[in-house]
């Protein structure tokens, strides 16, 4: 998980570098965040790649409006979530459960451990994809390490509502994946 960045000192894009520099920073530091937000909404690998490109294009277009008031990670997460919602509405097919990509194999030494871990990852991803969108948005941000206040700001809901949605999602995840994955 990417570490929490320090808030940007100046309140303008120019003060934080050019659009290209900011974009490079966003795409470098938020690789996992963007990929995982896309993963929570799109199971198909090729469609997910298109979605990631769409999110990155949206970030590029939105960067001039970034004033540095929020962390870059929060700004990126907000845009990624909205693009994902738009993608879910527009996609022609309903989401389907797909086999995990071989890329997901971890560096664990024992093959049986790898298999168990992959199975756990698969169950977790599938369970997240099956959550209702309002809960899915909240729990993904929570898994990414955002505070309830930040989740509330990103989703346009109160801190209390963000906390309640995360709690409901956690209960669903624990029920479908298990308390100790």
């Amino acid at each position, binding site marked *: 998980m990417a570490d929490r960045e320090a808030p940007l000192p100046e309140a303008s894009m120019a003060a934080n570098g050019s659009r290209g520099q900011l974009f490079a920073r966003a795409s470098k530091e938020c690789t996992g965040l963007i*990929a*995982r937000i896309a993963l929570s909404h799109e199971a198909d690998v090729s469609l997910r790649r298109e979605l990631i*490109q769409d999110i990155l294009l*949206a970030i590029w277009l939105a960067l001039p409006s970034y004033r540095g008031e929020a962390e870059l990670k929060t700004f990126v997460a907000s845009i990624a979530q*909205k693009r994902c919602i*738009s993608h879910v509405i527009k996609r022609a097919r309903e989401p389907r459960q797909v086999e995990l990509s071989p890329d997901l194999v971890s560096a664990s030494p024992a093959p049986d451990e790898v298999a168990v871990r992959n199975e756990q990852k698969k169950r977790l991803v599938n369970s*997240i994809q099956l959550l209702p969108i309002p809960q899915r948005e909240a729990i993904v941000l929570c*898994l990414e390490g955002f505070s309830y206040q930040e989740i509330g700001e990103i989703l346009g809901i109160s801190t209390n509502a963000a906390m*309640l949605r995360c709690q409901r999602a956690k209960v669903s995840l624990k029920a479908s994946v298990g308390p100790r994955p």
Partner: protein
Amino acid sequence: MREQGFEDFVALWTEQENAEHQAFEAVARKARFHGRLLAYTDIVLVVMVVGISVAGAVLKPSGLMLAISFVMAVSSIALTWKRRKIRQMTRTLDTSSREAFLKTSLQNVSSDLRRLTLSLIVFPLCLPVAILFKVAWRHGGHLAHPAAELAHWATSVRGMITLPIFLFLGAATVRSRLKVKAELRRLKALEAAYRDEAERDSQDSA
């Protein structure tokens, strides 16, 4: 915020990062190129319109030409700026809140659906009327047997070429309508999901 058990989920979830990392750089480069291309297209368009306006004013200098050139140059710059803003807003969905975004999306999709439904109703009615008008025009405003004239047109070479094209257009419109209808259904379901979740938030807080 974090309880034991949930940390395991966090660890599992964040392990997914490597899966996408390799392809990510290439995708980021493509997105940056696409973004720059969009901006350059806008600039080229403005330069072309302003250039033509200035050239017109220089080659044929008159008060009227100057006024027209000025209006063209200013309006093209203003329109490009506006287009850029709208594109930025739709791409980033930079709306004030989730509610506003859903409301605007619902309005847009509903208007699309109405437009397509109207096309499907009007299109089959207008086609025979237009054909009859054309045949009547050719016969000096008289039509003895409209149905026979339509059948005659349909079996002519022109009719046999034109009808499949219109049928194809009709089928494409039906397909678009089905897609928009599905989009509207998903939007309404999403709106209901947000409403239900907000109600549960209120109940759980109480």
